[in-house]
């Protein structure tokens, strides 16, 4: 597993070193990317926040109703819980209005669902329990975006889309149980927390996603600042089907994960620097 991360780091560094060499102006030399003047590389950092939601594909349950019982369905939350993401980005502006962007990102996503249970008995004995399940997934994402600048000016609105691969680094599960326990004499809801459960085995490592979004960039001299809003949708089931019932603590908490994909809305800011200059003495950058 570590070898994968090392490979990724080497790859990113090799790109960075290869394209961060400043050079003085030379006569245009055509290659498959065009001449030197036709394109610009940008490198920088980005970060922001996101909200996530799970989209269940197929439902699974541990609690099975017998005569008189009821089905306890999972009630998935909307885009409610906030996560964060940060990473590097390497943009290649290969045409006046078109760019590609590779953005290795550490993404933290949070989402959840609720399940309600109710028991009734004689002498007004009742117990209502609400299990609030919250999942935190941390991915190393490697999206490749294609961007179109709508206007060519200092403040550029743009739209973009792309595909990406995510490698799961860490997954945790939290369960908060809210009870209305009239049988024990409670008149108000009581909240209990369970320990954090390491849940990485419950998910597979890989996730492919597609992206769509847009934003604005602002050229401040040789610095480009930007803000963008993206929607991201997983393309595959992330639940590990072989391990669905492997965690005994989850069974005690009456939970088996559904097959699911993730949906995510990200809002982020970035700052990138050009890599190609026409004159290094004046830092006059190439403007394709």
């Amino acid at each position: 597993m570590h070898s994968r991360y090392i490979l990724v780091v080497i790859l990113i560094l090799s790109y960075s070193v290869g394209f961060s060499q400043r050079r003085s102006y030379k006569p245009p030399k055509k290659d498959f990317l065009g001449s030197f003047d036709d394109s610009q590389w940008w490198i920088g950092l980005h970060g922001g926040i996101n909200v996530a939601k799970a989209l269940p594909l197929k439902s699974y349950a541990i609690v099975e109703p017998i005569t008189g019982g009821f089905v306890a369905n999972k009630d998935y939350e909307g885009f409610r819980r906030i996560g964060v993401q940060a990473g590097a980005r390497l943009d290649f502006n290969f045409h006046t209005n078109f760019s590609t962007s590779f953005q290795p990102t550490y993404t933290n996503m949070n989402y959840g669902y609720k399940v309600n249970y109710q028991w009734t008995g004689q002498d007004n004995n009742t117990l209502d329990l609400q299990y609030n399940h919250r999942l935190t997934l941390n991915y190393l994402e490697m999206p490749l975006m294609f961007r179109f600048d709508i206007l060519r000016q200092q403040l550029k609105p743009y739209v973009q889309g792309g595909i990406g691969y995510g490698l799961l680094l860490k997954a945790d599960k939290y369960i908060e149980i809210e009870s209305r326990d009239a049988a024990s004499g409670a008149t108000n809801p009581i909240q209990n927390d369970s320990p954090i459960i390491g849940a990485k085995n419950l998910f597979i490592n890989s996730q492919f996603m597609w992206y769509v979004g847009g934003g604005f960039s602002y050229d401040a001299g040789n610095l480009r600042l930007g803000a963008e809003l993206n929607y991201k949708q997983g393309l595959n089931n992330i639940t590990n089907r072989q391990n669905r019932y492997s965690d005994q603590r989850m069974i005690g908490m009456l939970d088996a994960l559904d097959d699911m994909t993730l949906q995510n809305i990200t809002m982020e800011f970035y700052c990138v620097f050009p890599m190609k200059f026409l004159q290094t003495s004046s830092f006059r950058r190439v403007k394709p």
Partner: protein
Amino acid sequence: MNKFWINILLLSSLLLYACDISKNKEVKPEEVFVKIYENNQFDRSFTPLDIKQTPDGGYLILGEYTGSAFSPYPAVYLMKTQADGRFEWEYLAQDNYVTPISELLPTADGSSYEFFCSAQTDSLKPVRLSAVQTPEQLAKYNIIRTLTANKLADGNYGFVAYSQNSQYTTVAKGNASGGVLNSKQYYNQDNTFIEERIDRHLRRIRTPLPMLMGSRGGNDLFFTAFRLSNITVMSDDLSANGSEPKGIINGNSYDAAISAMVNISGNTFAMARYNADGENVFITRAEVAPNGTYTNTSFKGNILPELSKFARVIIKKATIAQRNVLLYFTDTKNGQMVLFIYDETTGALIKTRYFGSSNTFQAGNLTLTLDGGLAVVGKTYVAGRFGRICLFKLTAKELEALVKP
């Protein structure tokens, strides 16, 4: 530009290496599942005692439930599930049939199952019922307050009973139609403590007494009886003369006992016992001669302090991945069910597997399944308080992994 393409190649290789999506194949729902059967009623508690797989791939679970209005004893409960664990039907005895006293036994033609329970309105005499949605009474036997029953190697049925205030353990053999073929009584010399213990056993107020009944070759049976204020295991031929058993394993009080015993071959048995302090000992190979006299503590084995005190232990012989093994199934002090797998030949432990966590889980029983997997039934306390039946199904692959050293 060669470097560019090399990097692209490296990146692609990395993605392919990391990608486990193609391996994440759909698992058939009947291959692996966990179910907890819930009826949302506050006042009912269910305890499973045995599980068998039916020809349609589903599971038949025999158990008992408390909270019935008609009896101080737990009433008979039967449940049938589909192959993937989904609930199919249940039977809750509403009168008379209480306290199951046997496992699910195959019928004479092997097509279905039957079991024994006690007739509450008739001195707790044993009745044999068909294990179907509406059980039919197949036979009743005139043996008062029967504590256990089992099918014997010759197709007849063996019973152990203790009539109230009689001071005698009665052991009998009956035929399929309800006739008692022969019986024998063994004197206990105690009429005080044993009555309380048996009453608590029948009402499940304390851990049930470990009542055994089985064949050990020829006409000899082995069974649990009460003698000199001890829980003993006797070996005897009921047709032989005399009031003394041929062989005996003496206990040292009503608190120490042989809790499970399965014949491996000849005089070799797999056993479990608990001491007077409730701690458990597994003896995976014990030599018990039919006419020998022993005490519980004659049999040395592995002391397992993690197990529940006075634990109910299930021992089954099995062949898994061409390996003959012994399955010891019980529960732990921290509320998990646990399966110990021992090599039948050497008696060495191969692996353990735990079931359940967070809420308490108690062992019910287990059975090998038609697909080479394992089904394990137990009792769990949902939300820490509601006694419910839970069913775990392991795949053949998971089970085979458990017998590999």
